[in-house]
């Protein structure tokens, strides 16, 4: 044990770590939005009566959920140029994150939609509520409340998954860490610091999600 720790070499690169963190947050946010869009569209197709729209969604969900994200991102990274689409690595990473998160979002949102009971909707109409109010108050809000915990923890997982995007050199925290490592050779210090930053990010997100939940879903159910 003659190793002396040198976190100074890492802290000298603090601006890079900050920009990397912002890159990670950007990737995560864009990925979440895309995942939500895919999730909602997927559920619409998945709950339709036609088999032609249902089957591809089922296959999509199963394939994405049963293969590693790293393999998915490599596949997309190489597949897009062959389709004539040239994008920078960061945009490619957002697409991969959105597709991966979208598959999980489909399953979560579908559960929420199915949890709304038919009788409640009928009761809403019987009370003379307008169609939009029935949708807003009786379908949407309870469904959102039902899926909120699993959806937000999926979002936190997606944020942590952004670190894998370093494998295609997207702009985020882990790739910043790898650059600093190759310059300073302080591997342990760099990754230890960056791990702590990720912990701060995910803890802040958890706090924020809990705060939102207390603001909007703080009403008794029965």
């Amino acid at each position: 044990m003659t190793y002396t720790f040198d976190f100074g070499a890492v802290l000298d690169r603090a601006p890079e770590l900050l920009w990397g963190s912002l890159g990670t947050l950007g990737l995560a946010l864009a990925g979440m939005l895309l995942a939500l869009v895919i999730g909602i569209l997927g559920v619409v197709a998945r709950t339709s009566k036609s088999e032609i729209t249902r089957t591809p969604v089922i296959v999509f969900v199963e394939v994405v959920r049963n293969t590693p994200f790293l393999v998915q991102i490599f596949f997309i990274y190489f597949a897009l140029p062959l389709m004539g689409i040239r994008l920078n690595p960061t945009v490619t990473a957002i697409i991969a994150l959105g597709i991966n998160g979208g598959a999980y979002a489909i399953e979560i949102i579908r559960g929420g939609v199915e949890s709304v009971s038919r009788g409640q909707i009928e009761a809403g109409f019987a009370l003379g509520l307008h169609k939009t109010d029935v949708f807003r108050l009786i379908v949407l809000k309870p469904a959102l409340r039902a899926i909120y915990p699993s959806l937000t923890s999926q979002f936190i997982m997606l944020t942590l998954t952004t670190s894998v995007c370093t494998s295609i050199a997207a702009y985020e925290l882990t790739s910043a860490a790898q650059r600093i490592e190759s310059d300073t050779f302080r591997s342990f210090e760099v990754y230890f610091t960056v791990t702590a930053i990720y912990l701060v990010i995910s803890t802040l997100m958890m706090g924020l999600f809990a705060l939102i939940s207390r603001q909007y879903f703080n009403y008794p159910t029965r």
Partner: protein
Amino acid sequence: MGPIGENEFFFLMQGLKWTVLLAIVGFIGGGIFGILIALLRTSKKKLARTITAGYIGVFQGTPLLMQLFVVYYGVALLGIEVNAWIAVAIAFTLHASAFLGEIWRGSIEAVPKGQTEAANALGLHYVSRMKDVILPQALKISMPATIGFLVQLIKGTSLAAIVGFIELTRAGQIISNQTYRPLLVFGIVGAIYFIICWPLSHAGSGLEKRMAKAAR
């Protein structure tokens, strides 16, 4: 472009062997430490509960890739000469122990309180109460989530590729670079993962549905 022949396929299978081994070692090692974590997390001692809660929080709040890097370089700092395989196996064991610990904590708490009270009334001491009464029931409750995590772990072993460990995904990368057929190679690699993970996922969700029906 080069062809994907017998040699390339054999190389992928070599990688697959390491993927499977890594998942098994991580799952068994993580299972052993995971039970310990779950027991400490549900113990009467506040200190034990706080420490294990922190342990679980750190592993669930940081990327698996970072855990791999920190353990990989951290083990090297300890001055012990270990090869990449051991370092990566340790990382997956720690990771799995936190996640399984949290899953099993939930299942231990899901066992009805009356079971603990009955065991106490019968005069069973802690070890017997846990081993013979609570844990067997908790294990049953935890099965769907445990299988779900196993699938996560198998997929997670692919990240060892970024540390440079040659498992299935890294083997795929190497073949892809040699043959210039990334889509075919990663398609095959993805299919192999799917063949392993899908039956497990299917069994897990089937079990969940059956248990939900039985509980009604």
